[in-house]
């Protein structure tokens, strides 16, 4: 939509300026204003409406809230550590050795991301809970149990298993981008083994690791569904949700918690940016070679496979548990279900297909909007000299620091009494608001992919096109966008896959069952005895849908990459 408006302009800066203005208005309406509302209420006296800090005093004076704060902090930090322990060996093995399991790791390692973490929580409770399969077996054969899922442990385990791919992806990319010359020089100077790793490889891979770790920290700090499903109340996000949903939208504490969530996320984002700032490692180093790969000796191979299989079993355990649940009849205090059936899938196809269509529609629109917005922002920031263009980038990226709950509360607060013309319904309860929430929440992902893509397109190609008489709009449409297609597609896939499992914001915004997306549908199903099986079946269907979608777009990206490598880059620009 916006790209087409871009093409229509002949004047050099007018098109981008109008597009930029539209994006700015969109961000203002659906990110800045709602979040501002939330912040505003936090500083308001609930009785008089005057400005006050008393709500914050109440927050820090209440030992429960302070405890929740520390619990959230503890869980987020521990999840980063556990996720690192899971991700590091996988990243290292695949980049360092000629290891035939690499493809397996790269494929299976991403799958946890495409399942809502709370669904994983249900499955992991069944496997690792105090009376789950593992502990029942342990108790029977060895006479002891391990409290994997007791209290905060459960949240940490579920979150680490869900979010470790962020570290895996970023760390692998960083390791692959290390210039081989660095390693060779170090070896020439006598560094080997752990010293080489500690002094050369690890520091060089650090920015990638920090980027991933910060993302994990923020995501865990904000996550709502997992603690809720594990009945953990003493954390910040659940406290905010519980205050709003059981005391009311006017209770100031929910807003104070939201402000603290946003502040903390911004802080960690800023720290990670600082860490990345001096090390321009990402896309410029293309063709740097990566680490030297070597072959493994037989016993090393056995060891590697052992570790990898163990880790994969752990990270895929939610899927294993969910599969068992979706085919199981009665599963009660037993290692596996009593019997197996296809009934749950039949139920889902009979009664719940609207969740699937809704999700495809919502996540599809959201991802499409995301790449349009992201491409426009990337172009404006890197190809124009518009005043304040950097702020578009900052604004869109800031969405990363806004927890879904906060965005949800903000929308409710801002758009509750705003009726959409013609349909005469409050905007806050119209299904479009869910799409907008998804768009805003996933825009940072698409933006990073598109920015990376535009940085790889040489300005010379555009200048050449313009010299040959193409207008600015035509150049964008025929040269820039096609050359960015790989990045745009990658952005679309990431946005789509993660938007389709979104729950934090949607749980606040779904007003009608018929408007509900998949994650919400699963959550609803999981609330009744006979719904657990169908809920699990719906979860498996979701994983398959998103998984297949991700796989195909991956194939397309790879193919276009190969195509580009074989043709000369200019020739490709001309033919597409």
């Amino acid at each position, binding site marked *: 939509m916006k790209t087409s408006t871009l093409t229509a302009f002949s004047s050099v800066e007018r098109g981008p300026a109008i597009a930029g203005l539209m994006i700015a208005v969109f961000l203002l309406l659906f990110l800045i204003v709602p979040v501002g509302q939330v912040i505003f209420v936090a500083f308001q006296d*609930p*009785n008089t409406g005057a400005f006050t800090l*008393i*709500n914050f005093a*109440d*927050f820090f*004076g*209440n*030992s*429960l809230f302070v405890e929740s704060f520390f619990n959230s902090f503890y869980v987020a930090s521990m999840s980063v550590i556990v996720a690192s322990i899971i991700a590091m060996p996988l990243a290292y093995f695949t980049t360092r050795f000629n290891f035939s399991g690499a493809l397996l790791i790269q494929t299976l390692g991403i799958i946890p991301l495409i399942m809502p973490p709370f669904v994983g929580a249900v499955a992991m*409770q*069944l496997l690792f*809970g*105090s*009376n789950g399969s593992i502990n029942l077996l342990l108790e029977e054969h060895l006479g002891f149990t391990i409290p994997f899922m007791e209290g905060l442990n459960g949240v940490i385990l579920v979150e680490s298993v869900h979010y470790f791919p962020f570290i895996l992806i970023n760390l692998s990319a960083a390791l692959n981008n290390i210039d081989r010359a660095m390693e060779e020089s170090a070896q020439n100077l006598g560094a080997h083994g752990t010293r080489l790793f500690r002094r050369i490889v690890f520091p060089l891979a650090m920015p990638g690791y920090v980027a991933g770790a910060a993302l994990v920290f923020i995501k865990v700090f904000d996550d709502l569904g997992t603690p*809720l*499903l594990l*009945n953990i*109340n*003493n954390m910040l996000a*659940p406290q905010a949700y*519980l205050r709003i*949903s*059981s*005391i*009311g*939208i*006017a*209770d*100031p*504490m929910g807003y104070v918690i939201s402000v603290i969530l946003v502040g903390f996320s911004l802080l960690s984002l800023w720290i990670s940016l600082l860490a990345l700032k001096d090390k321009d490692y990402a896309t410029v180093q293309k063709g740097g070679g990566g680490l030297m790969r070597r072959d493994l000796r037989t016993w090393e191979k056995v060891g590697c496979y052992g570790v990898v299989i163990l880790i994969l079993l752990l990270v895929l355990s939610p899927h294993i548990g969910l599969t068992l649940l979706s085919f199981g*009849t*009665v*599963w*009660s*205090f*037993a290692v596996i279900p009593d019997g197996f059936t296809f009934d749950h899938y039949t139920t889902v196809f009979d*009664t719940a297909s609207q969740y699937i269509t809704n999700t495809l529609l919502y996540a599809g629109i959201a991802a499409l909007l995301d790449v349009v917005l992201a491409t426009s922002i990337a172009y404006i920031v890197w190809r124009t000299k518009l005043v304040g263009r950097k702020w578009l980038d900052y604004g869109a990226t800031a969405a990363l620091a806004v927890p879904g709950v906060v965005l949800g509360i903000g929308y409710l607060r801002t758009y*509750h*009494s705003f*009726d959409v013309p013609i349909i005469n*319904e*409050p905007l806050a*309860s119209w299904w479009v608001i869910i799409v907008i929430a998804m768009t805003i929440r996933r825009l940072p992902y698409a933006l990073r992919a598109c920015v990376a893509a535009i940085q790889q397109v040489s300005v010379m190609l555009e200048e050449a096109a313009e010299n040959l008489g193409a207008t600015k709009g035509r150049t964008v449409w025929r040269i820039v966008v096609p050359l960015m297609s790989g990045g745009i597609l990658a952005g679309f896939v990431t946005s789509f896959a993660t938007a389709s499992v979104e729950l934090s914001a949607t749980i606040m915004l779904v*007003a*009608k*069952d*018929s408007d509900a997306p998949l994650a919400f549908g699963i959550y*609803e*199903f*999981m*609330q*009744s*005895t*006979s*719904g*657990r099986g169908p809920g699990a079946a719906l979860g498996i269907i979701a994983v398959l849908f998103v998984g297949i979608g991700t796989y195909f777009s991956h194939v397309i990206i790879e193919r276009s990459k190969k195509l580009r490598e074989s043709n000369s880059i200019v020739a490709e620009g001309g033919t597409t």
Partner: protein
Amino acid sequence: MKRAHVLGAAAIVLSAASIPAYALSGKLTIVTSYPTDTTATFEKAFEKKYPGVDVEMLKKKTTAGIKYLQETSDNNQADMFWASAPDAFEVLKGDDLLAKYDVKVGGIPEKVGSFPINDPEGYYKGFAASGYGIMWNERYLKAKKLPPPMEWADLKKPIYHGHSGMSAPSRSGTTHLTVETVLQGMGWKDGWAEWKEIAGNFKTVTERSFGVPDGVNSGSFGAGIVIDFFGLSSQASGFPVGFNYPKVTTLVPANIAIVKNAPNAEAAAAFIEFILSTEGQELLLDPKIRRLPVNPATYAKAPKDFPNPFKDKTIGAAVKFDLALSKGRYNVINSLFDVMITYRLDELRGAVKAIQDAEAKLAGNNNADAAKLIAEARALVNEVPVTEAQASESDFNNIFKKKRKKATTKVTGRQAEIESEWDSMVVANYAKAKELADKAASML
């Protein structure tokens, strides 16, 4: 004989009152706390009967549903409110958010147990009866060698430490009713003491009422406090679970009402008539729903061993539930329970466990000092920060009400401030109680 009479009368009235499926149309929006199994079954049957109507279910927890109707009252989009807890309907009625309606369909008696089925003022109608009780997992109890708990008092026993669970009244309307029933049945002080001793054994306080049957079904914990249909429907789904009504329980109607200024009041009325008709009442017996119908005639179609409150007069007769009392302190009870139990479960459990251990050591011993310390510890645990009279004061309650009817309604104090005070007291008490109990144990 009496039963046959009722049956006959019901049949006549019903056949006379069956409504013609005249052309109703439009959207019917129902705010409900019920799970998909229940709502989907009724939605399907109703839409089949009135093809012109599109039923839209808006799922909210009872407490969130109340908030939702309160928040949106100036621009109401909902036609009906459909939930279990009558006290929730009382709150809505008190806020003038419900519309009166006269039911046409017959065959529904005045009372179930000692509770009137319909609101005497005509705002909301009972469509099913619900009692609160204890459900347990047979396999779990067998593995841990525990007997099934039959009464509330059983759940206080040390053998059940870490084996039971419940939801919180602030999250679940039905749980609120259970808490209130025990408080009314045993009195303010003894009632709270009962809850704390029961809660001291909890493994978890679940976020939603369904968390309890879910935990019992999957065997996360052995026993839970639930509304009857959770237990009965789990049984019907084949889970190895049992259910029992304790003596101090109240059988109350689950209700439905038309919201004031409903956009489609005509269809809403048809829905009420439908749910109370023979056809609608029989839907309640569906294995996935399993609620007690309010039409006594329907029990003829119920499976064997299905509890029948119109025949078995012991169910829910012990407590006469006072709705006005419950309504007057609704939010205070929620907040008290959360501060004393939900959010301080670890501390409470620690104190109760220490007391239980000390008492176990004391058994058979004759140590007056230790016994005195234990009694002190128990008193500390059971202390409630507000008196019964204060809990019902309307000024005090206003602090916990966020939406005031008039801007002039005077409020002193903030909820967060008061809760923080309670919290400090409760935490200090639990710590002190644990200390005293440990000291008592060390003397034995």
